[in-house]
């Protein structure tokens, strides 16, 4: 294509395409209407909107200084650890139960008639929040940490199951073929071709879920399923804000610590695995999900 020079006839300028601006304004309009409809439906008066920050600020002022001593005496630290134990056991239950199911749910491993119901099971269990599960379990197990651990465990079966299935489905199928070529059975394929490729990513997912579950177990305490939530609720009910803030700060510290340690361990697991094998897509997915770059 020759470059235009000053002696060429200049080509006609194209017109801007119609509709891009209209579409943008259209979307903005829809969003604004949705917002307005919601605001009116919820009866949010302008008055409340203005006074709310002020009320929040008052509460905030009352939260300082945090009453660490009082809270310590009440055994809040023990309760926080209880939340960690609940999260740990719950995650383990979820991990152990989800792993075999995940294999049965993977499309490169299992036939359709087994896969489909298991995947639906994962979806169903994932869709129910841990809190609701706890509500269901408490009448059966009674109040206390076991209900919380069960709720977290069952819910985690869903999430961990889904992630594990995705990992398994994204592996290199070469080694599976190799095992079959040597005359091995399905179980041998799993043990030697699938598991080595997939275990480090899955373990990483378990740790990531543990981090989330620590927060979930803290929350479960609020309905009596064990852990620090009950402490926070009782302080708030009595409007004892210094104590509430102390509990909050302690919780945040523990959560942040666990997050940091877990992130380090996860990084080591992923890095170790990448050096051993060709990077499978599941490592990429995990990196996307958890923000770890190799």
């Amino acid at each position, binding site marked *: 294509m020759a470059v235009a020079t000053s002696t060429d006839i200049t080509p006609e300028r194209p017109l801007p395409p119609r509709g891009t601006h209209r579409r943008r304004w259209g979307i903005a309009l829809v969003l604004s209407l949705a917002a307005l409809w919601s605001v009116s439906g*919820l009866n949010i008066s302008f008055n409340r909107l203005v006074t709310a920050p002020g*009320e929040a600020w008052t509460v905030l002022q009352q939260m300082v200084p945090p009453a660490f001593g009082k809270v310590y005496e009440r055994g809040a630290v023990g309760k926080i650890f209880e939340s960690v134990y609940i999260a740990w056991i719950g995650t383990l239950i979820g991990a152990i139960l989800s792993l075999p199911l995940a294999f049965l749910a993977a499309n490169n491993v299992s036939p359709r008639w087994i896969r489909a119901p298991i995947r639906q099971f994962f979806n169903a269990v994932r869709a129910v929040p841990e809190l*609701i599960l706890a*509500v269901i379990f408490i009448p059966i197990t009674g109040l206390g940490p076991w209900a919380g651990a069960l709720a977290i465990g069952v819910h985690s079966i869903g999430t961990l199951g889904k992630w594990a299935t995705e990992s398994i489905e994204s592996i290199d199928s070469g080694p599976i073929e190799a095992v079959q070529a040597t005359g091995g059975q399905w179980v041998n394929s799993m043990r030697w071709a699938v598991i080595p490729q997939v275990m480090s990513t899955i373990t990483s997912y378990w740790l990531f879920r543990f981090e989330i579950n620590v927060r979930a177990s803290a*929350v479960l305490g609020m309905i009596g399923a064990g852990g620090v939530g009950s402490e926070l*609720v009782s302080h708030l009910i009595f409007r004892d804000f210094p104590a509430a803030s102390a509990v909050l700060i302690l919780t945040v510290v523990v959560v942040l610590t666990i997050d940091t340690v877990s992130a380090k361990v996860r990084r080591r697991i992923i890095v170790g695995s990448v050096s051993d094998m060709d990077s499978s897509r599941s490592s990429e997915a995990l990196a996307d999900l958890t923000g770890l770059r190799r």
Partner: protein
Amino acid sequence: MTTSASAWPTRPQIRVRTYGITLALVAFTVFAARKVGFSPSTFWEVWSNPLWEKFWPIPWEWVLDGDNVIKPLIETFQIAVLSTIVGCSLALPISFAMSPLTTPNQPTYLVSRAVMNVVRAVPDLFWAKLLVTAIGIGAFAGTWALSVFSLAIMVKLFSETIDNADSGPLEAARAAGGRHTPVVRTGVFPGVFPAYVSYALYVFELNIRASVVLGLVGAGGIGRVLEAQRQFFKFDRILGILVLIFVVVWVVDHVSVALRKRLV
């Protein structure tokens, strides 16, 4: 020609450290299990518990009645809409401030990262309970709580995308002499916008599910109805409501997947 066995490399020993770590983990698990009251009998007791009878049959007349369930469900929807809009809007500038690629200056970067770390470390319902205590029960507090929740998730997802964005156009915009905000807006934003929309739709879905739970702490929506029924042990109604919610989430999920496909 064979080489003698002494020329073979020795089998690597499993390190003592690995044994140690495994042992520690097992010990911790046993300890935690006892503290938690792990009782395997529950796994089979669960099925034979007479309580299951109370879940059935589902009283559809009551469940589908407008005032009992439909109106609170609409309220839940509205909470989800508002909090997604508020949370995701705030997340936009914060995510840009949190990324080394697009942050205006060092203090903004450090402060935004620190603040977001703390916000994310607080369990979501703690926020809700706090806000409910501070500004009163009801959907108003619930909306604020979910907005914080939306903000946290959106920032986590979106700042990751920004970190991995193509920095080429950014360099070109800087080289052309633009100021910081226009440079980010023209150089980085168009590339990450599809991801933003995708995440926003995902957050909306999460919010619908979350506002269910929010009601349990008094923050309005269908959760309040659930909590009320729970206190009266009306498990059959609870199951009906849950089924309804499942349907709504399923519909929203499919609509949002379709929307996302159209955008990318």
